[in-house]
């Protein structure tokens, strides 16, 4: 199996899906001549031409709404945000149009749309450019929210997202673009809505997503040396949530730690904790624990930002509490 970066895996998914279906087009800032702000779309303009790889002005509301309208008409747009932080400018279009049109038209108009781009903190780009937006969108009925952590899933999930007949928020992670791993060639579709058990273990369960999976994985390795075996679950899809995989693991380990980069209030971690206590109350040997970003805006200073993020030190300290 070839080894690709997360960025190359996404590029492969886009190229393959554009090759397969003429109705798929890519639009966003710098996706064409510049080859993408993060080079995800490298070479696509050359391959597919300006009709299908479209450089947009800095106009998120405009081109997001355009994508939704084009989807209503039967095209399959892939709209790139340079970062999901900029999706806030298009929030009305995403929430009120992409997510509502099918329902409020009584099912007459479908929105086969992918909104995608980078996200997350840790690169010292400050408060306005470091958001983890999955909770904002997972709260909205009718939106599917995907956050791949590994190159193979980045490819397989993006291909599935493009083939979905419904609006998908595909949230990549800026820190992972250069991450290398094996990626299946050609037709590789990762199922949407299915979590993956990254490491098996029996002492406790970690549920995580996106960049935080890698933080958690480092901690799992550290603990392994101490004889503690953690079962790490990468959610991959935030919504719909694969509760079955979480439940199977927690029933076995009886302890749950949630690791996410989101701010703590009212996010998917809180939802998982709610469902676990509701469904698995008798299985739990300890309260559900959680490590999130701190409830502060993202600081620029590197030392401060690392303190805000769910760093390995905080994860390890929380594991100690969980296992006490």
């Amino acid at each position: 199996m070839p080894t690709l970066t997360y960025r190359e895996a996404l590029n492969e998914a886009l190229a393959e899906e554009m090759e397969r279906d003429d109705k798929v087009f890519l639009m966003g800032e710098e996706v064409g001549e510049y080859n993408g702000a993060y080079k995800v779309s490298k070479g696509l303009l050359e391959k597919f031409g300006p009709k299908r790889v479209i450089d947009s002005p800095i106009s998120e509301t405009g081109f997001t709404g355009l994508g939704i309208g084009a989807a209503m008409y039967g095209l399959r747009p892939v709209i790139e945000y340079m970062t999901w932080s900029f999706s806030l400018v298009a929030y009305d279009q995403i929430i009120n149009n992409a997510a509502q049109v099918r329902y409020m038209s009584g099912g007459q108009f479908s929105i086969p749309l992918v909104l995608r781009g980078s996200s997350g903190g840790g690169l010292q780009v400050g408060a306005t450019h470091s958001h983890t937006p999955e909770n904002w969108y997972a709260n909205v009925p009718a939106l599917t929210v995907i956050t791949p952590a590994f190159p193979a899933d980045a490819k397989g999930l993006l291909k599935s997202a493009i083939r979905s007949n419904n609006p998908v928020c595909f949230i990549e992670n800026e820190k992972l673009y250069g991450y290398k791993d094996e990626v299946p060639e050609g037709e590789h579709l990762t199922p949407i809505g299915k979590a993956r058990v990254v490491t098996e273990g029996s002492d406790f369960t970690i549920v995580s997503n996106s960049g935080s999976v890698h933080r958690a994985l480092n901690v799992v390795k550290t603990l392994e040396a101490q004889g503690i075996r953690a079962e790490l679950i990468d959610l991959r899809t935030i919504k719909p949530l694969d509760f079955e995989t979480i439940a199977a693991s927690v029933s076995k380990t009886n302890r749950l730690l949630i690791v996410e980069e989101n701010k703590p209030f009212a996010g998917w971690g809180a939802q998982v904790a709610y469902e676990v206590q509701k469904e698995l109350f008798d299985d739990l040997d300890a309260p559900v624990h959680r490590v999130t970003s701190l409830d502060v805006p993202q600081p620029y200073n590197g030392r401060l930002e690392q303190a805000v993020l769910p760093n390995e030190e905080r994860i390890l300290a929380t594991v100690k509490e969980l296992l006490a």
Partner: protein
Amino acid sequence: MRAADPDVKSSKNQQIPRLPEQTPQEKIALYRTMLLIRRFEEKSKQAFTQGKIKGFCHLYNGQEAVAVGTISVLNEDDAVITAYRDHGHALARGVDPNACMAELFGKITGCSRGKGGSMHFFDAKKHFYGGHGIVGGQIPLGTGIAFAQKYLDTNRVTLAYMGDGAINQGAVHEAMNLAALWKLPIIYIIENNEWSMGTSISRSSAGDPLTKRAGAFDMAAIQANGMDLDDVRAKTFEAVSLARTESQPTLMEIKTYRYFGHSMSDPGNYRKKEEIEERRKGDPIELYKARLIEGKIATAESLEAIDAEVTEIAQESYDFAEKSAEPEIETVFEDIFAPEDQIFEFRPEPRY
């Protein structure tokens, strides 16, 4: 193409097709549609007052010539998208009055299965893309529809309506920039009824006329008298021709007037009764009626008969809506997701 302002670009195409001559029957049909909308809205008003229609209900009375005139120059497969004052556009597009009234009543037989309400009428078969509730939010969607029409080489065009209040939304300007930049076959139609809810245009919008806004994008612009059906038709035809033959957008400003409040919840205290009475003297339906009679296209009696007929249709729609069933509770979980056919179905039953 006529420009409303010297700064506004005119079409380079000197060969604008002429609006085809209408038969008397076609003219009478347009009169009938305007009057149908008027009688339908009177019925809506009554039903709202009776508590049969809930939520918001924005009436179209006074603006009928805009929807009817603009849509009358379209082909059946051209697209229409509008804001929340959408009853008139839906009816002009040929959406079944029964389905419209049933939607107002929230019934399962409604054109959006009772899930949309007054502001969110839809009819895919009639190429009617809604009915949208957020001021200006539908304009990027219309632009995307026009983008898709061009992408798919359909030779179709889109009419995207907004009120004068919407012209100050960023979404509208972003969309117009994209349409001008990428030469999309769309006509942006401002229905300028002079009031964005209770705020007069002089208190909301700098720059007159509103067509000036097109100048910045080098977009064609044109004004029409929304009380005069024939003027609306002629001007829209120019814009539609430009879109269809040159794939160029146009911004239209159609001057009109609404007779009732912003919505049924609005008593309209911000304007004087005399103002409304004065404006009613220029009523678009009466004006057109007089023209038909003067031109010996119809007699007063035959037009009376049409009135009786559309009044009956409005009443029937009311009866139909009243008789129709409420949606079953189970339908609340329907219409959220389109079925998947390229990947396996991945959504569990709603469980939250």
